[in-house]
């Protein structure tokens, strides 16, 4: 079948024999366009609404590949006959569809915080999914048909596919310097345009070239011209994102803006911005002068603000003393100080003002550092804080510096790192917090001089508390690693209810005089003393507090009122006047035995008592949330809902809104599981007895491609989280990993062609090597990545790529080898089906990784990947079974 073109009948094309370079480049660019679109959509969600919903939408959109393969598998004859038209249609629609889908999706933004309370939001989320699904469907159709047409030389096409995806992933990283988030869609558009042109060159379709150009003009023109013409936004930033509030302040002025792969950073100036994290209420009556217009708000990906403090006049610096993070300077005079994370500069300014002899300050985000070091306006505002002669700047993560430096400090301060001043509902994703792990704490403690103080300040805004309990447990575990079992006199903890909490650790222990000084300061500031050496917690509060927290979520019975009205009232007739609680108390019964005054404060004190004196495991088991310590393997201030309680929360989601990111992972996993199975079973139901009836080893083949799809993605996504240890930024880590894995696997795919003749004996060795490498990486990566993290950024990327190379190269072998074998054995339907299974289980695997990581730790993902490749060995032999009556191929 050939389409009429302007030049007449199009020549037939045989992609199985020496296709042109233009063909391979086209595959590479379109595959790259798909990757770029994926990352682009996630960036758009990060900036406009919430990143984890972006992941959900993209994951599900990737099922476009599974759906295409299933449909092609069933309708294979049609696609073989109409392949030119199918590809042409897919390509010509792809670009305009990207623009149209994105623009329309931005007009139906859904708002995560109303997901439970407003039924319309579910449909908006669904609309987003459908809209973003459409362009992926075009990309998938193109790749599906290309694979079908070139199945006997699949290795090379697959090489082009992977290498193109990988290289374009890196290109996209660079594009983030060029395009603001609202225009990021242009990057995949460019790739699509070039890829489409090359395709029509490869199939000698001149009319296609013209049509592509017209489609490109329409797409780019539409993206640029329609929004101003129709008065619609290119990117709809939710009203509930931090930056949306700043933009509404009447005098708000954006004084800094930078688009980088590390995020989209904006700084706003406004008299309406006020920060004083953890400020004592007593400041109102004791402070002669409050600093005015002292802050600017820093927003990264519309999240924030983090306060940037200006250079305060001497008359206003008394203010620092009223902030909770001032604690260490109450007992340390003229210290040598190390600030673990610069952030907006508050800790650093305080360290300087508190009289530090020297301040060493680390910042792992080059974007932030660059702004403060080089922007003249910002330098003027902050009094060039980083240029102070007492300051030494470390341009990588503070936790890595603490691990490597020979220097010792009097004070190490880690205060409210990575955290915005105001709680933003719905914005809590699963993020690795390596600065707060047991290993990191150990490093900080070991970088202290004898008698040095580590101060860690965290938001204490949860009720019931979650993060602070994790912090308490983590710090005590680290202290025991460093100082031995008895750490009772090493800690002092202060907190303010629904504000902040500060944990002080002192090498060698606090003296009674220091404890007295800290207690007086605590009282003077109206802070709550949570723990001090010799502190007596009221143990009688344990039972009612734990029960109260349990009942808060899982109370089984009629709702009670705060004063204890009779639940029997609930059964009163409808229209009768309700009896108020004042009538509900039973005479003669005491109202309560023990009434905890402030539950979060009480549980904090009880927690410390049991941490120091034993029995914390029993308390933690009974506590309503999971409070496991943070380690480099499980570095999460998230996943608080115990797995056994997951289903119990499905009808009370609004109570755990800050856990939606975590719950969404489970939801994604469930949806991906159902979708993957449906897609796998679709061809089975329609063709197990017809299409597949003559294929031997079909179950083994399914297992083989399932293992590869799952194994590959589990390793890739798992390593993205793991490599954050060295690269400190999720987007960069993702891009480096995606690029490295895909390009190296592409190379592996290319090389694997040479071994096709002896695949039967060679491939098992490859599988064993992959399994062994992955399992070894699982156990050995941490120290290597820690060391890499201290290198200059470009070197870090190169070192990471070198680490990825061995397994990634080998992981490029199995997929094309299996696919080519199916092609050469004439198992055409199986070929398409295998591609779909691989794709579907990739989506499932991607959703599985965060669940594995939060439940079992990051190395577990690598182990799962390693095992998947080992399981594939026996299944591989099933792939090689020839069709009945046909000869086996040499393998």
């Amino acid at each position, binding site marked *: 079948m050939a389409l009429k073109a302007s030049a007449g009948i199009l020549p037939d094309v045989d992609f199985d024999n020496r296709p042109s370079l233009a063909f391979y480049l086209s595959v590479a660019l379109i595959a790259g366009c798909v990757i770029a679109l994926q990352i682009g959509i996630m960036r758009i969600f990060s900036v406009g609404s919430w990143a984890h919903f972006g992941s959900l939408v993209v994951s599900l959109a990737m099922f476009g590949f599974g759906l295409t393969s299933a449909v092609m598998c069933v309708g294979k004859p049609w696609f073989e006959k109409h392949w030119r038209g199918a590809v042409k249609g897919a390509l010509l629609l792809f670009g305009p569809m990207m623009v149209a889908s994105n623009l329309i999706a931005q007009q139906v933004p859904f708002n995560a915080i109303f997901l439970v309370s407003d039924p319309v939001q579910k449909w908006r989320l669904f609309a987003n999914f459908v809209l973003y699904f459409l362009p992926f469907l075009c990309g998938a159709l193109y790749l599906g048909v290309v694979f079908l047409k070139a199945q006997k030389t699949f290795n090379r096409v697959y090489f082009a596919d992977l290498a193109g995806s990988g290289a374009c992933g890196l290109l996209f990283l660079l594009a983030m310097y060029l395009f603001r988030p609202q225009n990021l869609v242009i990057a995949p558009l460019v790739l699509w345009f070039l890829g489409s042109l090359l395709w029509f060159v490869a199939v000698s379709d001149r009319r296609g070239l013209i049509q592509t150009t017209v489609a490109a003009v329409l797409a780019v023109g539409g993206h640029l011209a329609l929004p101003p013409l129709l008065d619609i936004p290119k990117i709809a930033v939710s009203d509930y994102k931090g930056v949306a509030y700043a933009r509404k302040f009447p005098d708000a002025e954006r004084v800094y803006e930078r688009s980088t792969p590390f995020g989209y950073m904006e700084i706003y100036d406004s008299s309406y911005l006020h920060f004083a994290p953890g400020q004592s209420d007593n400041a109102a009556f004791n402070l002669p002068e409050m600093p005015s217009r002292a802050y600017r708000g820093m927003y990264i990906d519309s999240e924030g603000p983090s306060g940037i403090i200006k250079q305060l006049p001497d008359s206003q610096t008394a203010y620092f003393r009223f902030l909770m993070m001032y604690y260490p300077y109450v007992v340390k005079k003229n210290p040598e100080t190390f600030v673990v994370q610069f952030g907006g500069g508050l800790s650093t300014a305080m360290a300087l003002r508190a009289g530090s002899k020297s301040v060493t300050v680390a910042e792992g985000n080059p974007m932030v550092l660059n702004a403060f070091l080089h922007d003249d306006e910002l330098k003027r505002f902050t009094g060039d804080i980083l240029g102070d002669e007492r300051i030494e700047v470390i341009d990588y993560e503070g936790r890595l510096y603490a691990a490597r430096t020979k220097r010792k400090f009097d004070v190490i301060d880690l205060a409210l790192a990575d955290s915005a001043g105001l709680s933003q509902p719905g914005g809590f994703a699963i993020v690795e917090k390596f600065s707060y792990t047991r290993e990191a704490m150990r490093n900080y403690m070991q970088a202290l001089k004898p008698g040095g103080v580590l101060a860690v300040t965290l938001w204490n805004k949860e009720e019931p508390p979650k993060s602070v309990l994790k912090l308490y447990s983590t710090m005590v575990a680290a202290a025991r690693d460093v100082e031995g079992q008895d750490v009772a006199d090493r800690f002092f903890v202060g907190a303010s209810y629904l*504000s902040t909490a500060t944990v002080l650790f002192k090498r060698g222990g606090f003296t009674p005089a220091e404890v007295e000084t800290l207690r007086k300061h605590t009282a003077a500031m109206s802070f709550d003393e949570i723990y001090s050496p010799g502190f007596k917690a009221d143990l009688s509060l344990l039972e009612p507090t734990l029960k109260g927290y349990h009942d808060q979520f899982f109370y089984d019975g009629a709702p*009670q009122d705060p004063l204890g*009205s009779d639940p029997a009232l609930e059964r009163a007739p409808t229209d009768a006047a309700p009896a108020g609680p004042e009538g509900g108390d039973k005479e003669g019964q005491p109202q309560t035995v023990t*009434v905890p*005054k402030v539950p979060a404060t009480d549980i904090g004190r009880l927690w410390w008592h049991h941490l120091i004196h034993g029995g914390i495991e029993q308390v933690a088991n009974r506590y309503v949330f999971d409070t496991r310590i943070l380690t480099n393997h499980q570095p999460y201030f998230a996943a608080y809902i115990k797995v056994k309680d997951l289903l119990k929360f499905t009808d009370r989601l609004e109570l755990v809104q800050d856990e939606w990111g975590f719950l969404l992972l489970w939801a994604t996993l469930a949806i991906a599981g159902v979708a993957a199975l449906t897609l796998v079973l679709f061809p089975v139901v329609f063709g197990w007895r017809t299409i597949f009836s003559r294929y031997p080893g079909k179950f083994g083949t399914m297992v083989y491609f399932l293992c590869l799809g799952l194994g590959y993605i589990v390793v890739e996504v798992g390593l993205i989280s793991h490599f954050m240890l060295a690269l400190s930024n999720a987007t960069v880590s993702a891009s480096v990993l995606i690029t490295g894995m895909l390009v190296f696997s592409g190379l592996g795919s290319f090389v694997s062609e040479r071994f096709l003749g002896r695949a039967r004996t060679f491939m098992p060795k490859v599988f064993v090597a992959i399994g062994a490498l992955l399992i070894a990486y699982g156990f050995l990566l941490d120290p290597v990545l820690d060391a890499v993290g201290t290198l200059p950024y470009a070197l870090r990327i190169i070192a990471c790529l070198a680490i990825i190379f061995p397994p990634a190269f080998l992981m490029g072998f199995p997929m094309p080898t299996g696919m080519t074998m199916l092609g050469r054995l004439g198992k055409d339907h199986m070929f398409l089906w295998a591609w779909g299974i691989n794709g579907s289980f990739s989506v499932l695997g991607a959703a599985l990784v965060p669940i594995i990581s939060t439940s079992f730790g990051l190395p577990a993902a690598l182990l799962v990947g390693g095992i998947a490749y080992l399981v594939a060995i026996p299944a591989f032999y099933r792939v090689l079974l020839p069709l009945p009556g046909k000869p086996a191929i040499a393998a």
Partner: protein
Amino acid sequence: MRRAITAGVTALFVTLLALPATAQFKPIRVDQTPPMDSKENYVDWMKANRGESEKWLTQRWNRYVAAVRVGDIKTDKMKRAFLLTPREVFAAGNPPVKERGYEHAFLDMGYGVTMSGPHLQSRMTDVLDVKRGDRVLEIGTGSGTQSAYLAQLTDQVYTIEIIAPLAERTRGVYDKAIAAGYEELKVIKTKQADGYYGWPEAGPFDKIIVTCGIDHIPPPLLQQLKPGGVMVIPVGPPGAQRVLKVVKQVAADGNITVTREDIYGGRIVPFVPFTKLVDGEVKGTHNR
């Protein structure tokens, strides 16, 4: 910016339309209290004395019953205040949610602002224990419902909104409502400003209610609170908010102390999220 103004003007227009220009409601005097013994008596009395529609009166009664049963409304003055507050007028500020004023859920009011649900609002108002004659300051006017609730309890209500178009929209809602007969709302004084600095000319205040996110309690507000005064601040995401109660005490020696506590005085209360009254029972996501 042009878009924001267009949206604001449209919303204002729609809001004004939500109150029928022809419907004249009768003001309720301070010494008048609607019957609380049954829905029929309440609805009849309100129809006769206020002239509101049965649709909204029924919804208001049902929500009232639910709120009293779970203890969010306890005293007679609170019951009266709730039964006289026309939430539907304020929900209509954002047309997509105009029918939902009596739902338990918090509602999107545009501008990144939510209208708290009737239960949370009642609970916070109850803790303030507003007495007639108290001077009350609200930071974060938002939809205007909270101040309308307070206006049924005292004759001195001050409210500040930071977002200019929202302040203007809600002022429009008040003006139209007053013109339509809700004259109790005349006691509400509004201003568009940064609530961080309070309203020094109008202070000191007996009670302050802060309905916006903060990372610390603004010192000017603590300064404008009378000795023995109470401030309440919801903290946390909508739907799962805890309410912080701040009490300012001045000792005989002039020493000022500030205590923070949960509004239940520390008792942990089972949450009753998103309930509604169905066949006489409080149905919610808790009651499977």
